[in-house]
């Protein structure tokens, strides 16, 4: 199947997710689709699979223009997909999930044998260990992922979209998947492969298309002409934008300390200390447990062992309310839309939410003018672009939303600020602003715990870098702002842990 996307655009309130993007997929090839979070990959995939309709541009299959009204149409046109989100029905059996939309029947009733035999065929391509009769909700995350892939395979379509299919499966299973995908390709299938893991892309893709900020940064370039380095720079274009801050040595008292923390997420033995005015980096791959740790510290998730000390005193923080008002700790969530902001509220209300308590006078009354006076400096300082502070936050661009999300915690005037992935999915200019800002905050005496999986960002900002892997802290790296050495040191720590584990399980 020949799939061509020509000049497709898609806008959401406040964001241009795709701007005249093209993409072309030939029969018998595996093409990688790459880009940072927020580059527009998911939007593109949702357009191809009929979930979104493009504002502009054309989707063509074998030279014919298509207009998908729903995922149904896309499936009918021969496009199968493994989506990033979990798309299984928890209480249904594995077999039923795989064949969900075309369950075989006999005399009008479901043919259970046919379901399980049929599903078995596809599942066997990947993993013989999963019983098709099991309810999906009792599977492990990796097994669910396998079921998702089997489900997409079972459509027997000539075109397969795989959005991060390997995110939660083991190396062994990944290998099996790759062998299978290559076989399908050799049989003439067209496959789109989305992944953040460079090794995988190099291992499997024939060509690559890169998106950056909703535009094409590369269109169907052969992988043979690519190196890791230029693929990264195509994706992030970041070398020229990220400015390293001068190295500092912070030699002050400890404000936040963790001693042997355990959480219900599975964190074990987490110990570190954060000094006044320091930027402590917390680096880790997606799923390492960084955000979860942050949530536990601010009381949004339970701590099951160990202790947190604030200014040398044991702090039993049970909720964010307490973290903010009693211990002066703030957390800027990475999940801006669901946790960081109230999209239907105004900029004024979103920023002031952390300081209402402070603004409230007798009888809990808040004077509107006082609220405005408290909010305006931050709106100006962060240069939030808006006609009015009474604008709903949902109407702002991603970058401006992130500024609001940061502004409300600046307004809160906390001593300790945990900043989680501050620059994901926002434009480069805002990113530079925010880097500058984080540096300034720390220089002003606020202690910052910076969570990021953006290595150059980490190297540019952090004073020290903690490395987290699989719910544990696996090392600390001093940051001398030399990208190559620091990033190598970090990745070496992670690889060392992985190796230890594989030898341990092998032996």
């Amino acid at each position, binding site marked *: 199947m020949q799939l061509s996307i020509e000049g497709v655009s898609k806008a*959401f*309130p406040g964001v241009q997710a795709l701007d005249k993007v093209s993409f072309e997929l030939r029969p018998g090839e595996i093409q990688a689709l790459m880009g940072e979070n927020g580059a527009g990959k998911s939007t593109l995939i949702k357009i191809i699979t009929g979930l979104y309709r493009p504002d502009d541009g054309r989707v063509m299959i074998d030279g014919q223009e298509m207009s998908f009204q729903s995922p149904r149409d896309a499936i009918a046109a021969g496009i199968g997909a493994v989506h990033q989100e979990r798309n299984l029905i928890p209480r249904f059996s594995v077999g039923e999930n795989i064949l969900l939309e075309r369950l075989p029947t006999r005399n009008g009733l479901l043919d259970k044998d046919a379901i399980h035999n049929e599903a078995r065929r596809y599942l066997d391509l990947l993993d013989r260990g999963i019983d098709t009769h099991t309810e999906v909700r009792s599977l492990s995350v990796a097994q669910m992922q396998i079921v998702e892939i089997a489900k997409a395979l079972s459509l027997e379509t000539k075109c397969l979209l795989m959005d991060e299919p390997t995110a939660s499966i083991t190396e062994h299973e990944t290998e099996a998947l790759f062998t299978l995908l290559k076989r399908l390709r050799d049989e003439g299938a067209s496959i789109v492969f989305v992944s953040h893991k460079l090794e995988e892309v190099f291992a499997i893709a024939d060509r690559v298309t890169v998106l950056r900020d909703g535009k094409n940064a590369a269109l169907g370039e052969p992988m043979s002409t690519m190196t890791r380095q230029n693929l990264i720079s195509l994706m992030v274009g970041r070398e020229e*934008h990220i400015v390293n801050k001068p190295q500092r040595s912070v030699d002050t008292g400890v404000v936040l300390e963790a001693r042997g923390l355990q959480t219900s997420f599975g964190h074990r033995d987490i110990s570190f200390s954060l000094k006044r005015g320091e930027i402590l980096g917390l680096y880790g791959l997606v799923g390492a447990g960084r955000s979860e740790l942050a949530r536990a510290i601010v009381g*949004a998730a339970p701590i099951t062992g160990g202790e947190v000390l604030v200014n040398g005193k044991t702090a039993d923080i049970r*909720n*964010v*309310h307490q*973290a*903010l*008002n009693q211990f002066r700790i703030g*957390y800027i*969530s990475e999940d801006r*839309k*669901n*946790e*960081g902001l*109230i*999209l*239907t*509220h*105004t900029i*004024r*209300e979103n920023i002031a*939410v*952390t300081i*209402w308590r402070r*603004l*409230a006078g007798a*009888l*809990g*009354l*808040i*004077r*509107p003018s006082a609220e*405005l006076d408290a909010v*305006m400096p931050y*709106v*100006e*300082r*962060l*240069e*939030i*672009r*808006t*006609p*009015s*502070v*009474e*604008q*709903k936050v*949902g109407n702002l661009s991603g970058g401006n939303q992130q500024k609001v999300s940061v502004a*409300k915690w600046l307004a*809160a005037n906390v001593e300790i600020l945990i900043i989680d992935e501050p620059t994901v999915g926002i434009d*480069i*200019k805002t990113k*530079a*602003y925010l880097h*500058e*800002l984080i540096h*300034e905050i720390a220089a002003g005496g606020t202690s910052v715990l910076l969570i990021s999986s953006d290595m150059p960002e980490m190297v540019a900002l952090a004073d020290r870098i903690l490395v987290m892997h699989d719910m544990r802290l696996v090392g600390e790296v001093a940051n001398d702002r030399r990208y190559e050495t620091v990033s190598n040191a970090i990745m070496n720590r992670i690889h060392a842990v992985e190796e230890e584990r594989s030898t341990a399980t092998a032996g």
Partner: protein
Amino acid sequence: MADVPVNFFHRQSHMTDETISTERSRRGFFAGASAQIGLFAIVALLWVIFSTLAPGFTSPINLFGIGRSLAVDIVIGFSQMVVLATGGMNLAVGSIGVCAVMLTGFLLQDAGMPIPVALAGGLLLGGALGWLNGFAIVKTGVNAFIITLASASLFLGAMLILSKAVPYNTLPPEVGQFGRMRIWGYVSPLLFIAIAIGAALYVLYRHTLLGRQILAAGANPRAAEMSGVPVGRVIIISHTLSGLLAATAGIMLVARLGAAMPSVGGEDWLLPSFLGPVLGGTLLAGGSVAVIGTMIGAALVTTIRSGLLVLQVGNFWLQLFLGLILLAAVMADRYRGVFLERRSLGRK
């Protein structure tokens, strides 16, 4: 990048069309303003129609009657509105109301308490039952619909068991006298109570810490929680307030009827309690309230009820009208795009 300033926050801000204006937009709090004006126009039109068709409609005695029932309808609407603000609902408003009615009746007639004590007792019970709802919702994490559906039955059942469904008919005469009192010949003092409550709620949501926290928790509980808003506490307070308002409405009914009857309230309040707020522009999804809208919404309900009565169409068709009006209102709202915008924003 040349245009990235190094030390940007000591820079002068350039006044361009994109920079902030501190001019207060009316769009936030008055989101439903246009809807309310439309609603008000409909109410006004109905008044013209009814008074033309039936001259008795504007007679002082009918106006007094309308005012009295309007007062109760408004407060019933408020008791639902305050939980809708949190994104929840309270199906037990009627049950709580009638529980408060019967306790007040008992305290006045059987226990011989002075009127202020009895009123306080009724209100306190309403608040306590509301608190129970809120507590159960927050502690179990089960949605408000099912908890209050069950508690409505529980409260009503308990009240009937304890009171044996016998009304209190011999209340102190002052109660009935207050209900019959007319100011300027046709205005019931109950209406002033309803308006005063409306004013207090307006200030609560517009100008106080608690009100802001309630709306934040209603619009996005996770984001509110992560911003330090004690969401659980706020929900419990809202339900307590709802119970208190339901009890107030119940007690106003006692004054109106001059007796405490077990047949008031219950499921009969369900539809009116949603009609006022929803017609007035309060979103079911939470995070917004329309205090004035709820009052106008209640006015629409009361007007239609009274108009049909005066025209002798009979109460039987009233239900049909109310249902159709509710449908028309939510659909008009939907197509004005308010819901659409919310949905697109709420989506990931």
